[in-house]
């Protein structure tokens, strides 16, 4: 791309944006080359940092007129390359739109700009005894706009839901610069319910410029019990046994031995480093009910084969138990030059079979894997340990990751539970969805964005991309998992 085009466009945007809100110097653009999936990098033409809705509208009108690709970006913590720039387009950063506009205690909701950090919402309303429930592990850094784009989850979503379940209204700037709103504060929407389309749409249907989030009362009491197991199978079965008791834990997480060791080395949470698996189970509610339910869960864990159960004695220890789990990714980052996080979801009953499959693939590829698992909702995060400096190891890692995702599909699961498709899982989308299904996705996108300028090349693979993927992955005319049931 010639500098002149970049400069010409920059001056058009500077007609309505402050000078420093238009980044056009290659050295400054470098900071926006990638998101949390740093293996993919691209330099955009420009980075734009609007400060209000009006500026977002003007940006979109100009991009629409110029047919410029627009990649919106929050905090850039995506693990799937959702915010990877387009070489011929602009990055629209919502980072400056980071104000909490209104907190309505009586209606238990808050209106916030998209750049507000997830955790900042809960911090701002904690004095009212309220909080915002979805808590992705990156909640210190990630923005609510990004959470909406990815339908972010977290460790408490079995009980409290995903982002979708905790959003009441959205204000969106469409691809043509016009505003549309989805307002469900009345728990109703006229016509089609567009909320589930927008939430998780990976920046392809509009630019979210205002979010009304639901606030919940902080539970009076939360306690955590840890179950220590000699086998991952027993740990997995214990989760089903807890659910069968009619208990929905606030959070229930599993880690396997490599993940336990990495986390323990890092945060010293007191994890048993010889255990094959641990379950961390949190219950919340009133003091009285939590006491009863914790006892019940401890009992189930022992019946399920736990060699030991540990009850966090106080709030400090409860947070300590969680700290190891929440720091699992960086912990793994300490024991390996690089790691690659996979995000498949499976029906819980398939856990043993899938973990056995993952182990076999790990051996086949000669790459170590640590597993952390949102056990309550079947969301598995195998972390593949590799070294990008070794020639070809990233490619080998990606291939292994793809095999794991296809294994998840094979067992009735999905290729992404909460991280999104982005650029990363386009190939696997061709396995999970048929051509008519993918065509339907494209058709929906075109209803919102006929010129296809919003985050082009992400989330939904083109026909050509799928042909390429299938050519690579179909050997001797054989499709992987021919008996595949995709529902």
């Amino acid at each position, binding site marked *: 791309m010639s500098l002149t085009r970049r400069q010409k466009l920059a001056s058009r945007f500077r007609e309505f944006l402050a000078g420093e809100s238009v980044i056009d110097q290659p050295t400054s653009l470098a900071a926006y080359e990638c998101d949390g999936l740093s293996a993919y990098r691209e330099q955009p033409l420009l980075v734009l940092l609007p400060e209000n809705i009006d500026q977002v509208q003007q940006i979109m009108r100009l991009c629409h007129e110029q047919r410029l690709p627009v990649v919106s970006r929050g905090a850039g913590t995506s693990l799937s390359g959702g915010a990877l720039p387009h070489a011929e387009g602009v990055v629209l950063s919502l980072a400056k739109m980071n104000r909490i506009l209104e907190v309505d205690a009586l209606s238990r909701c808050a209106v916030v700009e998209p750049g507000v950090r997830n955790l900042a919402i809960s911090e701002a309303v904690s004095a009212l005894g309220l909080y915002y429930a979805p808590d992705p592990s990156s909640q210190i850094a990630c923005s609510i706009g990004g959470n909406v784009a990815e339908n972010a989850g977290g460790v408490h979503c079995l009980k409290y839901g995903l982002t979708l379940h905790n959003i009441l209204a959205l204000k969106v700037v469409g691809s043509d610069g016009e505003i549309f709103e989805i307002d469900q504060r009345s728990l109703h929407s006229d016509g*089609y319910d567009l909320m589930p389309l927008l939430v998780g749409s990976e920046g392809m249907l509009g630019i979210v410029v205002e979010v009304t989030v639901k606030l919940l009362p902080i539970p009076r009491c939360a306690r955590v019990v840890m179950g220590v197991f000699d086998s991952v199978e027993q740990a997995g079965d214990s989760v089903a046994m807890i659910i069968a008791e009619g208990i929905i834990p606030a959070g229930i997480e599993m880690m396997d031995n490599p993940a336990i060791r990495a986390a323990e080395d890092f945060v010293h949470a007191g994890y048993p480093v010889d255990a094959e698996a641990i379950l961390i189970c949190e219950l919340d509610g009133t003091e009285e009910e939590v006491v009863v339910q914790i006892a019940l869960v401890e009992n189930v864990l022992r019946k399920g084969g736990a060699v030991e159960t540990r009850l966090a004695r106080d709030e400090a220890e409860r947070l300590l138990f969680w700290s190891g789990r929440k720091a699992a990714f960086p912990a793994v980052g300490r024991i390996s030059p690089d790691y690659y996080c996979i995000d498949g979801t499976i029906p819980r009953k398939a856990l043993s079979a899938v973990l056995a499959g993952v182990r076999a693939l790990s051996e086949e590829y000669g790459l170590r894997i640590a597993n952390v698992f949102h056990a309550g909702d079947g969301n598995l995060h195998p972390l593949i340990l590799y070294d990008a400096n070794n020639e070809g190891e990233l490619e080998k890692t990606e291939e292994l990751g793809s095999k794991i995702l296809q294994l998840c599909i094979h067992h*009735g699961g999905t290729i992404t539970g909460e991280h999104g498709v982005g650029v990363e899982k386009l190939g696997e989308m061709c396995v999970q969805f048929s051509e008519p299904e993918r065509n339907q996705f494209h058709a929906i996108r075109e209803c919102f964005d006929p010129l296809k300028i919003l985050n082009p090349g992400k989330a939904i693979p083109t026909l050509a991309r799928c042909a390429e993927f299938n050519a690579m992955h179909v050997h001797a005319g054989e499709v992987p998992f021919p008996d595949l049931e995709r529902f």
Partner: protein
Amino acid sequence: MNEIEDLSIEDELCTQISSVAATGGAIEIIGGGSKRFYGEPIEALPIDVSAHSGVIDYDPAELVITLRAGCLVTEIEALLAGHRQMFGFEPPCFGKEATIGGMVASGLAGPRRAYAGSIRDFVLGVKLLDGRGQVLRFGGRVIKNVAGFDVARLMVGSLGTLGIILEVSLRVVPVYETELTLAYEHDNADDHLRWINELGSEPYPVSASMWSAGRSQLRLSGSEQGVRQAVKLLGGEEIAPDWQRLREQTLDFFDPGLPLTRVSLPPAKPDMFPGKTQLIEWGGAQRWLSGDLDIAALRDAVAAEDGSACAFRRHPAGVPFFHPLPGAMLRLQRNIKSSFDPAGIFNPGRIYPGL
């Protein structure tokens, strides 16, 4: 659960749709017919899809059930109850013939809606037949799934205008250990609205609320300990529950001789209808009005308060059933309809003209 192998009904429907599409006709999708009143009347060939029934998969420990759309809601609720589970959204049936497909397509939820979530919140996946005669699957059988746009949930409340729902996977929840109902005197609606919204800031195990004729009712559901403690803090008079009759709209309030209007408002909005025959539920978000009224004027008034109104039952012919959409939004939604059903075969005009 038995896997049902017989696909003949599905094949038959595909053939039927393809031929209707080819001849430029239109169909009205009929399940149990219990919610046929919900929406604009349709002039099209009625097609009964209720024979497409059967439980495809139900493993209580997964908290997920996969059903063919023709399953009866009452039968499935009985099946779930046998495993001490239920639908969180407490769907109204409005007739024992109500089907799962109609439940999802109408998107109507009962008293627990404000506390447990909507049908949309519990839908995990659908298999549907589109206007080209293609069978498409979206979502899946797992709780967390962000692969592709969430088309499965778009089906909820789409009233059959986007396609024929063939199968649906729904998340289910455990039945509460205990449940009881408390009553309080609140002479006017505003007292109730303030009280019920303030209550929401405390973690009480509320699962339903209602106000009518000067009396508030509150349902508490949860563990023995949690409910008992809440009762101690909340006081009130324990009364026999009447939630089933609220859910099915058989309470005396729902006079079968009068028009019924549904007003949706942000829950803490003050009362807009003093002196009218009104029932408030969902913590203030859903307000029913019984009796004749000028719905056009009402719509203007509630829209100014960020709400909307539905001519739910027995309004004069010609009154738009649903609250009209702004022009740009209606155009967007018509485009979405066309993307699934380009020839306009399914329930044409059920929601709005062109939708």
